[in-house]
């Protein structure tokens, strides 16, 4: 069949063109289309950038979407105060390299002012919502790009590419706008804003294959390294300022890497000898655990943990 070329080539016969796009090319093209739509239709977009792999891929896509111009929006980071120092360093270098403005919402400041309370389990991930909404309001952002993917969680599987949020940032899964063809409806009224998820249709493996193909730099802790860890909740937790072992938890040195990079207080490492991006691609392809199941304590709280956070305004 002529439509099944056996390699990624282009055939030209008369005026007919047959370009066999790989799934990554198609996903990239879709994401860039969405990013450009949002920039064209909104007054003041921003991109949520944590230094995590999904947000790094998002920023990379944005640089490609507007090349040779610079990325035309600021990046926003909600700093839980419990971030890995090397990730904050990576964040700052990236912002500098691309000449971007960085807006930081600080969980610590909200706690210091008494507007947020530390949770009993020490996890700060769910606390990000309040500073996030505050930053969106203060800066009058009307669209915020996120690196959420539908394969991450069953609540995210029902998320729209453009997700309308009310004054409280709430997600109402029962009242979402139907999304048809590639026509995205971003209309919103005063006080509302839109979360945009251009990489909705990517899987974890797509992300890693793309990072490999595009040679994208990531924080080093995504790759295998030696680290002092202790076991808790069936995960390896790093020893750090905010993540101390209890007396019965033994500290050992292991070769680990992180599959997700979030708050140190709830993100676990996995044992791994994947030192390079190619190793990681193989590891992810062979993995028998979902990335959130393997590494996020906050998603183990209940079956609907993500759904509940999203309804409260989380990404």
């Amino acid at each position, binding site marked *: 069949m002529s439509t099944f070329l056996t*390699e990624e080539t282009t055939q030209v016969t008369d*005026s007919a063109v047959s370009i066999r796009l790989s799934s990554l090319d198609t996903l990239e093209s879709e994401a860039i289309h969405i990013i450009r739509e949002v920039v064209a239709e909104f007054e003041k977009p921003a991109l949520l950038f944590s230094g995590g792999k999904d947000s790094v891929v998002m920023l990379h896509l944005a640089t490609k*979407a507007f090349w040779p111009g*610079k990325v035309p929006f600021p990046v926003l980071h909600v700093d839980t105060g419990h971030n890995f120092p090397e990730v904050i360093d990576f964040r700052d270098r990236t912002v500098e390299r691309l000449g971007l403005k960085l807006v930081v919402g600080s969980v610590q400041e909200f706690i210091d002012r008494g507007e947020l309370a530390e949770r009993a389990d020490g996890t700060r991930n769910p606390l990000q919502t309040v500073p996030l909404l505050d930053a969106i309001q203060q800066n009058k952002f009307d669209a915020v790009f996120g690196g959420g993917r539908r394969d991450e969680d069953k609540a995210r*599987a029902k998320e729209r590419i453009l997700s309308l949020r009310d004054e409280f940032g709430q997600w109402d899964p029962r009242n979402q706008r139907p999304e048809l063809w590639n026509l995205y409806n971003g209309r919103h009224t005063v006080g509302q804003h839109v979360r945009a998820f251009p990489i909705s249709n990517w899987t974890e493996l797509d992300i890693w294959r793309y990072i490999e193909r595009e040679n994208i730099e990531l924080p080093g802790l995504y790759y295998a390294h030696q680290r002092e860890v202790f076991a808790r909740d069936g995960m390896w937790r790093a020893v750090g300022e905010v993540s101390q072992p209890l007396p019965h938890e033994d500290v050992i040195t292991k070769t680990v890497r992180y599959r997700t990079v979030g708050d140190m207080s709830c993100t676990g490492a996995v044992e791994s000898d994947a030192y390079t991006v190619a190793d990681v691609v193989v590891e992810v392809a062979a993995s028998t655990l979902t990335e959130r199941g393997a590494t996020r304590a906050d998603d183990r709280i209940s079956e609907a943990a993500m759904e509940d956070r999203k309804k409260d305004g989380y990404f």
Partner: protein
Amino acid sequence: MSTDSLAAELETALPTTLFRFATAGSVDDGKSTLVGRLLHDSKAILADTLDAVARTSADRGFGGAGATGTKAIDLALLTDGLRAEREQGITIDVAYRYFATDRRSFILADCPGHVQYTKNTVTGASTADAVVVLIDARKGVLEQTRRHLSVLQLLRVAHVIVAVNKIDLVDFSESVFREIEADVQQVGRELGLGADGITDLLVVPVSALDGDNVVDRSERTPWYTGPALLEVLETLPAADELESHLESFRFPVQLVIRPQGALAPDAVAAGMDVEAYRDYRAYAGQITEGSVKLGDKVSVLTPGQDPRTTTVVGIDFAGASLEEAAAPQSVAIRLAEEFDVARGDTIAAAGTVREASADLYASLCWLSPKPLREGAKVLVKHGTRTVQALVRNVGGKLDLATFKLEPTSTLELNDIGHAQLRLAAPLPLENYLHHRRTGAFLVIDPLDGNTLAAGLVKDHPGDHEDERYSI
């Protein structure tokens, strides 16, 4: 599989292509089980998810055993969604699922059938290369099947696969299957299947519960010699894989890239020739259809102006200069002449788009609880342009079971009907029958911004419209 052999496989594997499909059917047809089976047997479900589902299955006393030797799990739970859905035992919205084989990556739009089936099916089908419609082998073709097929025909889904499920419950009877198959083909003929709508309609006997003919061909249906469902999905051509031509080249301009000195610092640091990009000006967008090459003659279509014809001198993508590009690539196009081109304009193959029109005749799939009334003021979003519009009249609504048009002056949630709209500015409208992207539009409520309807452009009455498309 060892990681070494996996590594070797990843190394040699061709890049997979992307295939989008949707499922339509009700819970009773075993749709959730079928989707769960596809995900499970294609190994898209990881151990922790499977363990959780196995625990829940045991808690609920699920006794179904898989013929393929899997542990007794309720596969339908794999597609379990939100808390509200679990509590009420219903599915309220389209869910997207992902799985891959060696050949393809699949995006599955899982469309619930019970509530608001038209809204969900229209949404899922709008981007689908193929749709799988489920039928319960014990019940055969029902009114709902006719409705589904009718919507798919209207939306021009190229490939439809009817999965006759629960074939195990009719003792793998060939005669039952053949009868249903004949009924399906009869509905297809009534709908006028052909090159412009559903181009092919395949009927496959399956048992989602046991896995027969889902991923692998079953020995229990020796009379069925066709491919298993997944084989079909792996081999059908995706719309993007078809040959494309300049003739159908369409490129709605999203925005103008004109850095005027605000060049990307990383590119400059990497040695970009700053002088060469001082006056850079390109039109960014995604090719919605067809293809374009350097040197091709194209027209810039700006509403209210005559088409301006020029030549493509550059197809840029993130620092690469391309010789040609095709749908669905996102690129930036440079033109020989310095026209004033802006968002909302369309670049198309020269002389292929008819004059822009302010009179819009369309089929509308009404998706909102707020009904359509004649005289309503709405917004129409077409390509990258949004204009105001007045609903002049509603020309009838379609009885999806009989395919007949009934007189009405209003459209309500899940209705599909005809309407004529007057636009505040002319748009380069094209018949949806021939242009699945530039023939599509959204109807938006100007008050709250909600999407009211999916619109499919029809030819003006008096033009030579295809008779079959009287729906």
